[in-house]
C-alpha cells in the first residue's frame, strides 16, 4: 500500500468536491488544508508542506471565473507557477506542486487527480536534490 503523503491546499468552495457530504473518509495518505479562498494559498504554504513530509502538493481551487472572491483562483495559479519555478531553481522536481480547478460536484475528477498525483508521488518519493532538470 502506498504511503505517499499528499497535501491538498483547498479553497472552501471546492472542498465540497473532496467530501460531498462533509464526512467521507479521505483517501489514505491525503491531508486537506482548507482555506477560505484559494487566493490565500501562497508559495510558502506549498514549500512548507513539502518540507514537512508531503511528497506532492495539490492546490485545489474553483473553476476559472467561479471564484466567489472573483480572482482568488487566478492568484493561486500564479503562485503555483511561482512555487514550481522555485522548486526548479532549488533542483527539485516542479511537478511536485500542481493546480486543479474543481467545481463542487466534481468529486470523480478529484479522485482521478489524486490517483495521478499518487502515482507521481510514488515515482518521486521523498524530496531530494537534483531530481529536477538542473
Amino acid at each position, binding site marked *: 500500500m502506498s504511503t505517499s503523503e499528499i497535501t491538498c491546499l483547498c479553497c472552501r468552495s471546492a472542498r465540497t468536491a473532496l467530501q460531498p457530504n462533509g464526512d467521507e473518509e479521505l483517501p489514505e495518505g491525503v491531508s486537506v488544508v482548507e482555506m477560505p479562498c484559494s487566493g490565500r494559498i501562497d508559495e510558502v504554504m506549498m*514549500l512548507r508542506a513539502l518540507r514537512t513530509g508531503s511528497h506532492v502538493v495539490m492546490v485545489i481551487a474553483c473553476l476559472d471565473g467561479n471564484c466567489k472572491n472573483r480572482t482568488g483562483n487566478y492568484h493561486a495559479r500564479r503562485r503555483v507557477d511561482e512555487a514550481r519555478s522555485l522548486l526548479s531553481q*532549488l533542483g527539485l522536481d516542479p511537478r511536485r506542486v500542481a493546480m486543479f480547478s474543481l467545481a463542487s460536484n466534481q468529486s470523480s475528477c478529484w479522485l482521478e487527480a489524486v490517483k495521478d498525483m499518487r502515482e507521481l508521488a510514488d515515482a518521486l518519493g521523498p524530496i531530494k536534490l537534483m531530481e529536477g532538470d538542473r
Partner: protein
Amino acid sequence: MIIAERKDLGLISKMLEGRSKVLVAGCRSCVAICHAGGEKEVAATAEALRLRAAAEGRHIDVTEMTLERQCEKEWVQEMGPHLQDREIVLSLACGVGAQVVQEMYPATLVVPGLNTSNMGAPEEQGIYLEKCAGCGDCVLHLTGGICPLARCSKSMLNGPCGGSQNGKCEVNPDTACAWDLIFHSLQRLGRLDLLEENIPPKNWLPSRSGGPRRIVRPPVVQGEEEKRSREGSP
C-alpha cells in the same frame, strides 16, 4: 522607485554554502512594490532555503525580518538585535540597502539576494518599466516629460532615429519609441516648438564621470555641534 529581481535560488544557495544561521532581510519600500524583497518574498525565500536544506538532509536555521527601509541607517538599526547569532545576512533589498546593512554591521557578511536593475515605475501589476537613467542632468522639460536617455533604446537626445516604425522601436517591437511618445506628449501640450530646439551633446560630468555621486543639500546638513547635541553627548 528602484526595480530589482530575485537572484536564482541556486546561486543564492551557493552564496550561503557552509552557513547554518541565516537572516533573510527584506525591505518594505521599492523592492516590496516590485515583489522582489518585501515581507512575502522574504517568507518564500526563507522557506525555499529551509526546503533545500531539508532535501540535502542538513540543518539550517533561517530567520526572517523586514525593515521599513534598508537604505536608511535609522531603520537599519532595528536589525541589530536580530543579528546576534547570525552568520550571514541575505539582503532582499536593492544594492543600496545591502551596502548600508554591511556598513552598519561590518562583522557580519551581507550577501545580495536581488539583482538591482533600474529606476522605474509599475506599468501594471507585475510589469515595471525603466523611466530614469539617473544622468544627473535632466532634460524632461524639453521632452514632454519622457526621458530619452532611459526610454529610447539608443538614448538619442534628438530623435527619432530611422528605426522608429508605427510608434515602436526597431530594437524591440514591444518597446514604444520614446521619441514617438515625446512627439505626442508635446503635441498634447501644444509645445511642438520644443522639437525645433536642438539638444546639445549631453554634459556627462554630473553622471558617473567623477566616481560615486555625492549630493549635498546644505539646508539639511547638520553641523558637528548639532549632531553631538542631538545624540545627547556633551
